């Protein structure tokens, strides 16, 4: 199916696109509209746009909302959601040192990409890598407990 968001993607939208393609819709097609553009295309699910279902809620990022809306309970994804919460918007409490770096890298990725589509494509590798590393740390942590 089609998914739509505002153009000039950042850390949260790159992560969402990765999540959508990997866990919800392998054939996802992403459309981009200018910031604030209306009406949104009717045949596409909007995300990370203020006021839509898949958006920021209660101070949490859109990635977090998608996990909740689609009942994704993988603890590694939950961890990534915490990192993106801190990377994407100002939080009172900072607990994830990776957040600032991730934000910077995603912003830089847009600078070196010809368009949003390319930025999303390239961003996948970053989130695959983040997932793999956090998953391996979780396994170690659990082994340590046992």
């Amino acid at each position, binding site marked *: 199916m089609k998914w739509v968001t505002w153009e000039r993607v*950042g850390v949260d939208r790159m992560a969402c696109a990765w999540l959508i393609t990997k866990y919800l819709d392998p054939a996802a097609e992403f459309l981009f509209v200018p910031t604030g553009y209306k009406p949104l295309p009717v045949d596409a699910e909007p995300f990370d746009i*203020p*006021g839509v279902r898949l958006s*920021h809620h209660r101070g949490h990022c859109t990635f977090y909302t998608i996990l909740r809306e689609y009942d994704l309970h993988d603890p590694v994804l939950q961890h990534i959601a915490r990192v993106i919460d801190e990377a994407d*918007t*100002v*939080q009172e409490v900072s607990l994830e040192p990776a957040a600032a770096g991730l934000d910077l890298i995603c912003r830089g990725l847009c600078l070196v990409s010809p368009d949003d589509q390319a930025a999303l494509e390239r961003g996948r590798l970053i989130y695959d890598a983040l997932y793999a590393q956090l998953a391996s740390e979780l396994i170690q942590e659990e082994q340590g407990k046992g």
Partner: protein
Amino acid sequence: MEQPQAVSWVLLVYKIPREPTASRAQVWRKLKRLGALLLHDAVWVLPATPWTREQFQWLGVEIGELGGEAHLWEARLLLNGQNAELVQQFQARVDVAYQEILEDLLQEEPDLVALSRKYQQVRAQDYFHSELGRQVLKRLLQARGGFAS
């Protein structure tokens, strides 16, 4: 040194129910954390960048969810000199914080962990790249040891 000038500013005007006070405080603390300036107890201001626009946008959404209402504007100052004055206000505030760090660094056995954390928080609000910030960074690097750069 020539001062960097913001060409435009993002303004956030909001109201939020008095109760629960926790919600009010939460929004207030986020604005402080962003380093926004409160003008005349009415308007919160940040220099306009894609990043600050987005921060205010999502904060506006959060205020709405907390039962409040927020308006977000982008504006230029029309009166001569006021732009520079506003830049100056932003700079003065981070400079006070940087100065405190510099003074603490001169103490015997300064708490480098706490000071480096404070430095990172101040730097996140240093929208106009204060010269003092560069000095703090230099001192912190020196305090860390290794090769002087």
